[in-house]
């Protein structure tokens, strides 16, 4: 279940996705709809780690992001 996150968590997650999932912009247009880049990248990260793919910053995803890790991106840029 997506939980409300504070701004620190949101910023932390954005930095994580910029560094490790090549997130470059906040949103992009596709077929006339604005698609959240962050949501796409969250889904990519959740899929990579075998988490439930929600595209939202839920507690499980945030917990995974806070684990110590290698600084190399998980997916090729």
């Amino acid at each position: 279940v997506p939980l409300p996150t504070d701004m620190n968590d949101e910023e932390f997650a954005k930095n994580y996705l910029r560094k490790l999932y090549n997130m470059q912009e906040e949103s992009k247009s596709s077929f006339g709809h604005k698609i959240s880049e962050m949501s796409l990248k969250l889904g990519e990260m959740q899929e990579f780690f075998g988490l439930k793919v929600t595209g939202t910053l839920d507690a499980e995803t945030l917990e995974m992001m806070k684990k110590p890790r290698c600084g190399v991106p998980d997916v090729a840029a």
Partner: protein
Amino acid sequence: YTAGSSSNKWSTNKLTYRIENYTPDMTVAEVDVSIEKALQVWARVTPLRFTRIYSGVADIMISFTVGEHGDGSPFDGPDGLLAHAFGPAPGLGGDTHFDDDETFTFKSSNGYNLFLVAAHEFGHALGLDHSRDPGALMNGIYTYRDVDSFVLPQDDVNHIQALYGSNPEL
């Protein structure tokens, strides 16, 4: 130029490495042994052979550093990002950097075991990407394992042997 993520491989099986500096967390001998053991993890299952040099430019330049350190991939202080490495290429390629804001250890599970972090990073330096297998050494998340009984997981063996082949001496 991004740390890691490469499908490249070295064009030679004979690679050099150089330890440029040391972490204050461990003795020089402990760092030397950890690095050597971490390279041997990969040498044991491939034709790759590693020679240490003490001056000049090695294929794999190893350093302990903090924060922004000139490669466009800054470290972030304690915890979080522990290290990174660049895939096979001239220049920065192969180079492996450890975040010296971490506490690295030789045997203890308190802090981050240098052998385990280094073995993972050298996988990148040899051309491997992160694995989705949570049990693989090349999974991006740090997991402590008993270093004395460490055996390279099969997922990692498969990927490195796909690049370089198996050890002809076994």
